[in-house]
């Protein structure tokens, strides 16, 4: 079954590769549908970076991040540690696993990801990042500025503006509330968080993403998280309505972050 899935995935990749190579984001002929939502066991397709008619890399596609879901530190450079401020450790020390906003079906904020794909859609004035998890979307306003500080609303996903630097889409986001966690572990942030994401299509099947977190309200210095997302051949976003959450009521345990924060605080 797995071999069959891989073969189907490769066929799907070939079907997808030709029109993208021709600088067309949407295939003129619908590719064969092999599995609803696409297969996540298929390997990402190989090939060169596709480009839009204006010469910029085409980031369109359904992408899957596999790393750093449970614990964001998996995305740090080897040996690097999170630069917690003492107050952040004190906040983390009291966290309960069942208090994770994700267990209330609330939105996830960058840099957090669930193990579900996202789709990038580009228009001249906006880039949309559609996330399957909790059916959310992000709007990236190209070539614009953030609102003045007194007009900036603090929201779950913040306010994002974008620009191209050579072959990299740079997304700058501020205006987060302080209610989300970075991961299941329980890493926290403040509402002063500023995130700069850099999306670079490495080849047809891979999207390199670097996220620099500058949050003077929670961390003593900026730090950068990196992952490579994989293109899901024939990928489609699927419905994800979180209408049957039973876990929060059946968990009564400290968050992993609480246990480690207590150790770091010497308690």
């Amino acid at each position, binding site marked *: 079954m797995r071999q069959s899935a891989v073969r189907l995935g490769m066929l799907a990749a070939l079907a997808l590769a030709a029109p993208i190579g021709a600088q067309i984001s949407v295939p003129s002929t619908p590719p064969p549908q092999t599995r609803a939502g696409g297969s996540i066991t298929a390997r990402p397709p190989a090939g060169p970076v596709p480009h839009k008619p204006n010469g910029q890399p085409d980031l369109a596609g359904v992408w899957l991040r596999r790393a750093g*879901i449970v614990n964001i530190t998996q995305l740090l450079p080897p040996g690097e540690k999170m630069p917690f401020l003492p107050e952040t450790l004190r906040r983390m020390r009291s966290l309960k696993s069942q208090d994770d906003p994700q267990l209330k079906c609330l939105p996830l904020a960058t840099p957090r990801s669930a193990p579900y794909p996202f789709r990038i859609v580009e228009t001249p004035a906006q880039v949309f990042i559609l996330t399957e998890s909790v059916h959310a979307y992000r709007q990236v306003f190209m070539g614009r500025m953030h609102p003045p500080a007194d007009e900036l609303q603090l929201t779950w996903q913040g306010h994002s503006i974008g620009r191209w630097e050579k072959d990299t889409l740079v997304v700058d986001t501020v205006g987060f509330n302080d209610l989300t966690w970075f991961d299941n572990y329980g890493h926290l942030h403040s509402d002063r968080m500023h995130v700069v994401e850099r999306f670079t299509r490495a080849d047809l099947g891979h999207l390199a993403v670097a996220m620099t977190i500058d949050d003077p309200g929670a961390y003593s210095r900026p730090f950068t998280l990196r992952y490579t997302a994989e293109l899901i051949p024939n990928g489609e976003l699927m419905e994800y309505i979180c209408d*049957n959450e*039973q876990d929060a009521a059946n968990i009564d345990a400290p968050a992993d972050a609480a246990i480690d924060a207590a150790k770091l605080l010497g308690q």
Partner: protein
Amino acid sequence: MKRQPLARRLATIAIALPLASAAISAHHSFAAQYDATKPVEMRGTVTKVEWTNPHARIYIDVRDDTGQTANWNFEMASPNILVRNGWKQNTVRIGDRITVSGYLARKGEHMAIAGAVADATGKPIFASDPTDVGR
């Protein structure tokens, strides 16, 4: 702790499943909700399938050695992850006799997380790929 004797009676085979079992999801911390030291395998009849997020759930009636029947709630991965691994909404139907292996919940009564599912003949009907996301 009160559950453990019952679980032992129900566990027709207690096997050391690897932690990376099929339905262990990134939706929540595995260790916070389930006990990796209490693997179970249960045979029973499907009474309900919930094809929902954040988790699909299979409910099965399981009879223990004393003849008592209890309805167990097995947490699966999300439908989205199951489908992308080849599972279908009707892969398991009400009335099917299945065998489910997994781990007991720490808190919820008659709750467990499913690792692998086999049909009445013992043929695996869900075996997740170790490279799947969501674990």
